[in-house]
């Protein structure tokens, strides 16, 4: 009886079992082993919502109190506009500014759901300059995240506010800020058939607006130099479109290069020493670079097709552009010497105005498909295309210097009487959320974002 079970069990399978056991058991064991040590929970979901931040009006004695509240309101507005922060209503604050200076009572701030706390002070120095100091606290961890002090002339208080907002943004998100920047754009006014287009500049938040040109000549596609307060743009010289340089500080303008045909679609190289642009004299256009110091010109494309809208990668080693060499208008990349041309966009419709993100990970572009325009991003190899915004007419994306936010313009359709057709500037977060209109005194198009002001 006792033997039977043994015999009934064929040895072949048992050996296989043994083998199986031998191979599988260690696997199971090793898989189970690390888990014995500790429970491990994967959090793969979360949410995206603005971080609640308490910005206490900066304290100051007498006249400085005004500066204090002005600065903190600019900081607050900057952070709010980024879409990543939700400044809390100062009325809800429990602890007073004076008390915080001694020691923030984090329980009070947790109570109103603040996750970060900013407070600071403004003092006038003996030499008349302002000393603006602030601290950023992590309310939940109960730790100071950063604390900085700045000295500046009183007229400069707005810039200090932007710099403080940048410091807070950088400390919390890990990315550089973009608040201490300016935007040039084409200010448009007048009826649709006789538009006056002037070059204008303003702070990123719309403040300090001024016109740079008087509108007698048409100006188009301004682009900021990544290194200096200089703009390159397209204007008309003897009825020929030509690329110009404009020095913001001096107001000086000059034509770039002396070419037989028309030049357009200019952009600076990342080091600011060259301008890359299109030159057209025979019907199709080719891409050229011009060294601003030596004025030497170099041709990069040589193809019987239209090649235009060139842009540099932030490291200067690659160039993106669009071309119709494959039939439709698509995006291409090539190395800085013009070799290794590679098509990267393959979607329906036409792609135009590629711009490389300053952080290098994405290209923004305009796409025209089925009668409507959209602004999207894709990786430099063409993968991961995403459409961020879509409309009757959206065009001309430009990156904030941290590569996180895009600005562009949107035009409303106009009827046959020429009504409508307003053009406005908008900004949008890279994630496709937080689309905001940039308020300008007149209509605006073709924005170009400056680098952080040095």
């Amino acid at each position, binding site marked *: 009886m006792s033997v039977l079970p043994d015999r009934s069990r064929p040895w072949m399978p048992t050996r296989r079992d*043994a083998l199986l056991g031998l191979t599988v*058991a260690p696997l*199971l064991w090793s*898989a189970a082993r690390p888990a014995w040590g500790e429970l491990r929970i994967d959090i793969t979901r*979360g949410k995206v919502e603005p971080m609640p931040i308490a910005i206490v009006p900066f304290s100051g004695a007498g006249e400085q109190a005004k500066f204090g509240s002005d600065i903190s309101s600019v900081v607050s507005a900057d952070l709010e506009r980024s879409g990543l922060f939700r400044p809390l209503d100062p009325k809800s604050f429990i602890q007073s500014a004076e008390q915080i200076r001694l020691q923030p009572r984090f329980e009070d701030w947790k109570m109103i759901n603040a996750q970060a706390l900013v407070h600071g002070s403004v003092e006038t120095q003996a030499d008349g300059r302002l000393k603006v100091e602030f601290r950023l606290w992590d309310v939940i961890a109960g*730790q100071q995240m950063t604390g900085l002090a700045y*000295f500046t002339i009183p007229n400069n208080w707005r810039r200090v506010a932007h710099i403080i907002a940048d410091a807070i943004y950088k400390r919390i998100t890990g990315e550089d800020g973009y608040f201490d920047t300016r935007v040039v754009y084409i200010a448009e006014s007048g009826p649709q058939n006789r538009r006056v287009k002037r070059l204008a500049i303003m702070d990123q938040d719309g403040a300090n607006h001024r016109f740079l040109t008087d509108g007698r000549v048409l100006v188009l596609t301004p682009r900021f130099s990544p290194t200096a307060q200089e703009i390159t743009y397209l204007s008309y010289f003897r009825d020929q479109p030509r690329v110009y340089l404009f020095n913001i500080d001096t107001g000086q303008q000059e034509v770039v290069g002396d070419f037989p045909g028309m030049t357009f679609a200019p952009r600076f190289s990342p080091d600011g020493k060259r301008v890359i642009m299109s030159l057209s004299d025979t019907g199709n256009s080719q891409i050229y670079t011009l060294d601003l110091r030596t004025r030497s010109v170099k041709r990069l494309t040589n193809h019987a097709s239209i090649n235009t809208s060139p842009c540099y990668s932030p490291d200067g080693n690659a160039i993106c552009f669009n071309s119709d060499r494959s039939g439709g208008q698509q995006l291409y990349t090539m190395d800085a010497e013009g070799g290794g041309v590679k098509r990267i966009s393959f979607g329906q419709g036409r792609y135009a105005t590629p711009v490389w993100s300053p952080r290098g990970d994405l290209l923004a572009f305009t796409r025209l498909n089925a009668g409507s325009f959209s602004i999207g991003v894709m990786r430099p190899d063409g993968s991961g295309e995403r459409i961020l915004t879509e409309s009757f007419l959206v065009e001309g994306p430009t990156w904030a210097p941290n590569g996180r936010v895009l600005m562009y313009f949107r035009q409303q359709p106009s009827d046959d009487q020429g009504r409508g057709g307003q053009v406005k500037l908008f900004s949008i977060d890279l994630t*496709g959320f937080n689309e905001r209109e940039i308020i300008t005194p007149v209509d605006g198009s073709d924005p170009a974002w400056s680098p952080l002001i040095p």
Partner: protein
Amino acid sequence: MTRGATFSFLFHALVVLLAFFGLPLMAKPPEPMLEKPILVDIVTIATVTNLPPPAPKVEPKPEPPKVVEPPPKPEPPKPELPKPEPPKVVEAPPPPPPPPPPPPPKVVEPKPEPPKPEPIKPEPPKPVEVKPEPAPKVAELKPEPPKPEPPKVEPPKPEPPKPVAKVEPPKPAPPKPEPPKPQVKKDDTFDRLLKDLATKKPATPEPAEAKKPEPPKPQQQAALPPTPNQSPPPRPMTEGQLTLSELDAIRGQIAQCWNVPAGARDARNLVVEVQVDMNQDATVRHAQVVDQARMMTDPFFRAAAESAMRAVLNPRCNPLRLPREKFDTWKSFILNFNPKEML
């Protein structure tokens, strides 16, 4: 003829004898080895399959979940996961009321030194770093001496959720009446952190969204294998393990507190592990990012790590909805914040 028959007979006899004595002998040696691995495996598998049942059991609605039936086990986890959850949630509320409020997470009352450091010297025209060292340290050490403060801390916990209710309400409240729906809604908001108008339009959004709940499931299942193992065999018995629905409840709760760094550069690679030590009342006693070195050097990682820490320490997520009787299992664990699937 007879010789042939004899031969045949002898040969057959030999074969039979060989078979009778030889085979068992050959078979025997491996035998002792066989049973060990196989039996061990079966045992663990049993515990694995045991995992889900606790959930159905708790559940009032489903068909009379008879004792330990293998078939129901595999099924509930897949399609019915949401259901197991509600009971969990229902179960969770009770814990908070019985407030055994010993030490609140961290009461940073003491002030050995107001970090209000000496005002910055007006020497440099550039920014000056001011760092009050004491504060942080104090914060960490303090938890032990429970202060009279606790009462103050407690109230906010239940309340705060309301103000922020916009996103949340579905979570805590609805589960009781109709669990599945809140689930779907929640998924909607979490769905896509990066907007792509192109994909949204063509696809009929509703069904697509409705289906979203599916993906999470596989994901949970993927997480399944490890979980059973996680409840350490050395520990008493299956009771010590967290059930899938309990794990889901915690995941859901922390997800409500975690603000994902969605647009950051290489956000996909910003996976943060946080080592969490718990108090018996399911509040966090101590939490620390595992990769401290990277925290020092990589500002993006630091930002992501801090967002994870804020989720862990968020008053809204304290106490965590953990079954108190399984304290041994969760008194210390690792939270792995991984935004990959959302981006």
